[in-house]
């Protein structure tokens, strides 16, 4: 009983120590990659939240290289942040040039952005050619023969790409 309490306290103390020791370093590291102190501060916070969520696991196996560990977690968040930022930029650019966007309400735009974000994550699992073929088929409504010509591959390959794309998207949705 006592040992459990002790070790829990140990866990908290370890995280507090990690926070004190590495918080400044981590937010600096993130800022050098983002160039924006606010977002860096947010991601630093999120990183430590994830560490706290795993405190049981960390208590059992203390970190030998806490900075490497923090960098891996922060890196995942960073990549996700960059993807979302990239997506939003492309979305805004598309809105500015597409007449279809003018008639949309702010709410419709928000829903569309969320849908695109979900789709982007789904498509992210696909390799570049599969993704390309899939988008040509789904968005442009091109026939396989036409996609095959444009991509310089056989129609059978396109068929294989499509099957793969559907399969991976379904697996992700389930």
């Amino acid at each position, binding site marked *: 009983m006592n040992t459990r309490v002790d070790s829990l306290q140990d866990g908290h103390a370890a995280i507090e120590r990690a926070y004190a020791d590495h918080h400044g370093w981590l937010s600096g590291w993130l800022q050098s990659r983002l160039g924006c102190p606010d977002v860096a501060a947010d991601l630093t916070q999120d990183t430590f939240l994830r560490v706290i969520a795993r405190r049981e696991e960390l208590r059992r196996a203390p970190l030998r290289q806490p900075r*490497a560990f923090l960098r891996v977690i922060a*890196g995942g968040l960073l990549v996700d942040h960059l993807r979302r930022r990239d997506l939003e930029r492309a979305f805004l650019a598309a809105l500015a040039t597409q007449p279809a966007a003018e008639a949309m309400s702010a709410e419709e735009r928000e829903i569309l952005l969320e849908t695109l974000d979900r789709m982007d994550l789904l498509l*992210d699992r696909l*390799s570049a050619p599969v993704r390309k073929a899939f*988008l040509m088929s789904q968005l442009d409504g091109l026939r396989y023969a036409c996609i095959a010509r444009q991509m310089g591959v056989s129609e059978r390959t396109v068929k294989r790409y499509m099957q793969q794309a559907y399969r991976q998207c*379904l697996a992700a949705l*389930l």
Partner: protein
Amino acid sequence: MSRSAALKHASGSESVLDEAASWLALAQQRSLDAREVAELDAWRRHSEAHEKAWQAALELQRMFDGVPAEIGAEVLGRHRTDRRAVLKSLVALAFAAPAGYAAWLHAPRVTADYRTAVGERDDVALPDGSRLSLNTASAVRLEYSAEERRLVLVEGEILVSTVPDSAGHSRAFVVQTRHGTVRALGTRFTVRDLDDGRTGVTVFEHAVAVRPLGAAQAHRLDAGRRLDFDGQQVFPSTVHDEARPAWSRGQLVSRNQRLEDFLAELSRYRPGLLRCDPAVAELRLSGVFQLDDTDRVLELLGETLPVRVERRTPFWVTVVAR
């Protein structure tokens, strides 16, 4: 052949997914006839897993239907570098991390700021006035901040000619690769992501400081020398006598080089496969070749060496004994 013949009604969840994908693909290509609709209905009733897979299929279809084609194409089809490139650039993160956490690196694509295709070269002026040349199949991301001017070499090879910082304060100029950093000390140098898990650095003017990710200290490399390093250490440097890299002049220079090594180098500039028959791998050659016409270079080989170029397709070329 009817679709039903192609679909096997197996019960494993893997094959359910495959079958759902086949139905989706079919329905997307043309409208189903009455018999196929009945068949699909029967397929869905087969098990709960079947029905769930089909609901996911409908959800996927709804997502695409809800997106205007032009906007979807622009946003989802935006040019991004491939996953491998991001993984490479983020290897710094994985380095020294416990292996189990590699799973954290489900990295989506991140934009490369400058990129060349196979066979392409490009020269650009960086925001601070420094010059950047990209060799074939290369990608670079720019990460300028208040503290430093950082280039991330995602893949390939670059030539950098730095100038003193123009922003009023002297920020360091750093090239980061997946193995470490190369810090410019007012200088001209190339950095190349080598395929064998190392980074190669060649200095043409002044010096650079090379620091592998896992090394505590930087290693100074002066003009006229080159070296390789990996994530842990710097390998011994060697001398070179070039004033600038041959590729930046559009040339490939070989001096008494093994044919196999020469072809490996040449293949960087050609799409497709370029193979060397082991029987001729040890032949030696010297010369200056123009990179803009690699087909011509291959032709020249046949004129100077006892070899023949075998073309199965334009993208599959093997150099064999004559």
